[in-house]
């Protein structure tokens, strides 16, 4: 629930309490005003229900938007990393391809050189053999022939050495080439995988963008609705304030009409909950799940002003009066279901929301610890009671005056 929704709801509750307080205490002269107030209340309840629905939808839209934005941001971050990785891979592939090309060229050259060298060696061997058979050089010059044979050996050795050197160089280059090819294949596979991941991310990003656009559109629509509702609530608040003033004025007049002695008396002094006879007790056994005051919601990044607490208890549990008092209001309030308001005198009120049934009637006096209502059932076996304490028109933290499990 957003802060705006809470604010509207609080205003409504305040208005409802005022109405609940004023109606039983109203003098016969103010019956027409009370009727007017009832009509106004019914209209307000309808408006609140609409507003609550819109607020819930808006909240949902905001939550979705936030989630979607988060997802889009995450996807964009991943895409950025992906692109950087792909770029690195591309650079690596480019370098590897360059090296591959150079190595292939070197291997081709070496192969050609090797072929030439081998052909040369074969020809030299043939020439040496032919020369040996035919008697190379002048046969009358044995020393010359000896030298020629020696030089042929030198030549063949140099040629064979050249062939061996080229063979070795070619083998080295071929090894390098196969290594590079493996490296390129691995990198290509990686690139393909990363491209696939990138494409998936892109499609997801596209989906998220579509979803975000839908949410944005929904959000704008809801914001517009909310704005209009807030305007209505503001108007309703002013009406409630006006009615409160009218009720106070009528009470003052009624006191004046009842006797001159009472007319001079000042209005009842506001009391504190601690000064209630018998003190206060817990409305039921349960754990406080929503605290009083400003609470920050990390999920939606909003601050909510809670005017009461929410106590989680077993489904169908009885709700008891926190102190002695009188039922000031028992009716339905938009967003809080059935609401019971007990007046403890001296401007002290206790409000019980989200009840399924009332066990008391409006105007009925209740003692401390008396069952006043019942929580609804739920499949999970747990239900939540809304408890709010008001002193002199101001909400106070129930946990500060009542011992509640947190």
């Amino acid at each position, binding site marked *: 629930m957003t802060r705006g929704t809470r604010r509207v709801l609080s205003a409504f509750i305040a208005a409802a309490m005022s109405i609940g307080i004023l109606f039983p205490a109203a003098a016969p002269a103010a019956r027409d005003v009370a009727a007017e107030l009832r009509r106004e209340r019914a209209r307000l309840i309808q408006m609140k229900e609409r507003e609550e629905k819109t607020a819930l939808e808006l909240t949902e839209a905001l939550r979705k938007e936030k989630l979607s934005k988060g997802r889009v941001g995450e996807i964009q971050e991943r895409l950025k990393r992906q692109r950087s990785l792909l770029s690195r891979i591309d650079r690596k592939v480019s370098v590897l391809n360059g090296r591959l090309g150079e190595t292939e060229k070197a291997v081709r050259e070496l192969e050609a050189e090797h072929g030439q060298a081998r052909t040369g060696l074969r020809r030299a061997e043939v020439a040496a053999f032919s020369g040996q058979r035919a008697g190379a050089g002048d046969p009358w*010059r044995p020393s010359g022939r000896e030298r*020629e044979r020696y*030089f042929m050996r030198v030549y063949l050795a140099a040629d064979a050495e050249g062939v061996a050197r080229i063979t070795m160089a070619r083998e080295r280059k071929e090894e390098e080439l196969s290594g590079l090819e493996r490296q390129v294949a691995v990198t290509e596979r990686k690139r393909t995988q990363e491209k696939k991941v990138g494409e998936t991310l892109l499609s997801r990003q596209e989906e998220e963008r579509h979803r975000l656009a839908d949410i944005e559109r929904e959000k704008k629509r809801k914001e517009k609705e909310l704005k209009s509702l807030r305007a209505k609530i503001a108007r309703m608040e002013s009406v409630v304030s006006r009615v409160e003033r009218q009720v106070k004025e009528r009470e003052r007049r009624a006191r004046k009409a009842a006797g001159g002695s009472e007319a001079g008396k000042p209005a009842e002094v506001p009391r504190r909950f601690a000064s209630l006879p018998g003190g206060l007790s817990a409305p039921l056994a349960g754990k406080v799940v929503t605290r009083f005051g400003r609470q920050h919601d990390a999920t939606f990044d909003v601050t909510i002003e809670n005017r009461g607490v929410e106590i989680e208890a077993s489904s169908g549990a009885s709700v008891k009066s926190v102190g002695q008092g009188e039922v000031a209001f028992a009716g339905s309030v938009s967003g809080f279901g059935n609401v019971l308001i007990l007046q403890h005198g001296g401007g002290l009120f206790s409000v019980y929301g989200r009840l399924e049934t009332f066990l008391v009637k409006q105007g009925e006096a209740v003692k401390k610890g008396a069952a006043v209502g019942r929580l609804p059932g739920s499949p999970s076996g747990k239900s939540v009671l809304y408890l709010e304490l008001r002193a002199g028109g101001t909400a106070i933290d129930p946990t500060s005056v009542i011992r509640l499990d947190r």
Partner: protein
Amino acid sequence: MSERPSLWWIDWRLSRGPLVREATGRFLFFCLLGFALLSLILSGGAGRFIADRYAITAVLRTEVPQAEAEGLARKVAALPPVRSAAYRDPEVAWKEFLRAYPGMEPLRGAGGNPLPGYIEIRIRPERLTGADVRLVTSALRSVSHVEQVLAGDEWLPRLLRAEHIVSWAFRGIFGAFLAGFFLVCRLQERARAVALAGDFAFLAERGVPAGRLAFFRAAGAAVSGFLLAAAGTAAGGGALFLSLRTFPFLENVIGPSYELILPRTVAAAALFSLVVALLSGAASLLGWMAARSRRK
């Protein structure tokens, strides 16, 4: 008064005609023999031929600079048995190699010229012996610039033996001709002694001793033999000179023409003439004795 007649050239005075024919024949024979003798002396038998074909090759290391290689060649040339020592750079070696093994030229581009330079050392013909060759090769092997010494270690002993045999064969043939000359000469002397037996008997009756007659006849034969041999050798030498000048390739086998006038050649020719003189004298004496024994 009894005057003793001179017995010099008695045969010439008694039988001039036959003696002219014999002298002519011997001169021609000595021309040939002189030609052969001088050829043999100049060529050293087969020595010059072999020496001209034999060479020691000192293959140098590839990194030896040309200047150092040429300096080494000069030092080697100064060795006593060495006739010449010439440095051939790798380019020349490659060209020679290509001449010996045609068709290898296209291969040069693939690997360049792998051949090193070398020094070709030729030995003097008269020093072409195993000991002198070893002297030169051991000197070369001790030089650090030399990679390999090719001196025909496998075939040189056989070559030297063949040269020895051929040289002795030439000398034997020459000796045989000389012996033939001696025999023919003896027969001629005997025949003349028989033909002039009457004249010699007449001289003996007048108191000329037979021994004195034989001595003068032999002395005349020796002197004429010497002169004829010298003249024939000179003529043969001239012919050889002309031949060498006309056919220079013969110099590779026989030797240069200027060696004909070297003192050792002249001395050999003189010695040859002297031997011929002795043989002529001996043949005359033996012919005389043979004729006397037949008459008895």
